[in-house]
């Protein structure tokens, strides 16, 4: 199978948790639904038009945290809207806590995620190839951003990997560089002598697919395990992973798999 990878970098990021109401909490990594939105924007698709084409059945997506990331809260002064007359500000304002993701230092660092894309086996779509063509030949349409339209981002480090090895393991310890599917992991290991003994590990349920009804109705979720530092996760894994080999580095990655369809 062929895999396309690229880095998406910016100063600030915010991936809104859809279940949080007044407090705008952010996921630490972009959910699959956010990533397909970024890809659709680069490819010049219109809003809400690509849910089926880029769904988990057609496109496999993996994600890796490349920079150390940090979250902090700031308060935004939103209008308090309870009825349509409140846009004038006459009902006052409401202070909404808003969580942003930055690098360790805003001034010197940045937020970097690496996205891996591959066409699902048996899928007729050629998304990986089309996207590669656009990225390599500088033909992007809408500008990429990290969650909010104004959190501008740039795409760097585009690579195409041909004939990627897929490895099947049955409960063995491996170092995985991307976010892993929780369902495949039975144990985490922190090695005293390893450089990454100070790892920060999070588990999260992330939106994966929308129904193709233009309404952003959630169809499926991913349950994932990842680290917020640029270290691999040492996990006891049952399932498959993929090896992206370069001269000085081997990246072992997993694509996000659905944990079951929510609604039909």
């Amino acid at each position, binding site marked *: 199978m062929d895999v396309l990878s690229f880095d998406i970098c*910016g100063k600030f990021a915010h991936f809104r948790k859809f279940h949080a109401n007044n407090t705008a909490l952010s996921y630490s990594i972009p959910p699959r639904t956010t990533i397909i939105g970024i890809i659709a924007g680069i490819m010049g698709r219109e809003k809400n038009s690509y849910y089926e084409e880029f769904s988990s059945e057609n496109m496999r997506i993996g994600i890796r945290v490349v920079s150390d990331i940090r979250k902090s809260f700031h308060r935004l002064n939103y209008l308090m809207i309870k009825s349509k007359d409140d846009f004038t500000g006459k009902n006052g304002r409401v202070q909404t806590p808003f969580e942003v993701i930055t690098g360790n230092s805003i001034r010197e660092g940045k937020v970097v995620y690496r996205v891996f894309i591959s066409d699902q086996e048996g899928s007729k779509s050629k998304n990986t190839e089309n996207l590669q063509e656009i990225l390599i030949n500088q033909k992007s349409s809408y500008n990429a951003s990290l969650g909010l339209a104004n959190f*501008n981002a740039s795409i760097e480090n585009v690579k195409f990997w041909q004939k990627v090895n897929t490895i099947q393991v049955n409960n063995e310890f491996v170092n995985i560089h991307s976010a892993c599917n929780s369902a495949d992991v039975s144990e985490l290991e922190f090695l005293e002598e390893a450089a990454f003994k100070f790892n920060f590990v999070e588990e999260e349920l992330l939106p994966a697919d929308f129904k193709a009804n233009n309404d952003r109705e959630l169809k499926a979720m991913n349950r994932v395990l990842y680290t917020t530092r640029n270290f691999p996760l040492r996990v006891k894994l049952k399932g498959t992973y993929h090896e992206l080999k370069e001269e000085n580095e081997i990246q072992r990655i997993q694509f996000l798999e659905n944990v079951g369809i929510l609604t039909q």
Partner: protein
Amino acid sequence: MSAIKNNSDFLFIYEAINCNPNGDPDQENKPRMDYETQTNLVTDTRLKRYIRDYFMNEGKEVFVSMEDGKKVNPDQKLEFTINRLLTEQDLVESYFDGNDEMRKSFDEINKEKKEKEGVFKALQNKKNRALNDFILDKIVKETFLDIRLFGSAFAVGGFTHAYTGPVQINWGYSLNKVYQIDSDSIVTIMNDDSSTFGKDYRVHYSLLAFHGVVNKYSAQQTGLTEKDLEEFRNGIWQAIPSLPTRSKLNQYPKLYLEIVYNDGFNNGHFGDLRDLIHCSPKDEIAGYKKVRRFSDLKIDFSKLESLINSNKGKVIKDVILKTSDGITINI
């Protein structure tokens, strides 16, 4: 006028001296800070408000504003605009010029509408979707400069549409470490027997940098023209010092640098332009804590200069540059 033809990225830097660039409403209105790195922050919405206010003072049509001196909501604003545009016969003529089909449906609605209600009411019927989209599109493209630049979401009965702004500005942050002024109590005297102590938080000196993009694809949706962009470039430079209030005094623009890309090059081609500037306190100033003015800082633009100079003609079509005293950029 047609929509802009090129993508561009811009860098905007302004300084804030002894003032509060952007208060955090939930932290006693202290300047927004990331305390872990002593970075002062300013949101994009603060900057856009300066620009909108400046446009309004210049007499331009701004959607997020007032009508007849009263604050109005989007429904009323739209109603006001539509009734104003579509009740005078000569205006209607030019409005639907070359769109006979739209003209026909509009005339029908005009005939059917009740004696006392305005055109707007009659239009709000669901079946007029296509006509309303056409009217809204025209209003945005011909009337409201701020929506052409920054976008807006319309959620008015019969008129729903979200416009993503072609101009997107990231949050700004200080290039230097920023420290707050210690003494911060003020007395307010209301009348003889009731005065209170208030708090007034300020920064000593903050050199704030913003990175923004202008995207030609989004521009087609809102109809952003080259002329609008000229207004924006002028507005961002003029707006901040022209609207001095007590907490916003002593803020001056320092640099506006816009890289206009040739065809086939996209926003973010050189990453965040702020990463190409290096700022540090001058040797004779004992660290960031002692920085009080622009001349206390050393700013190194060499990375930015060499990048621009080596890409001119190939990637870069044009560079638009405005600087104030004390900044030289050799491009």
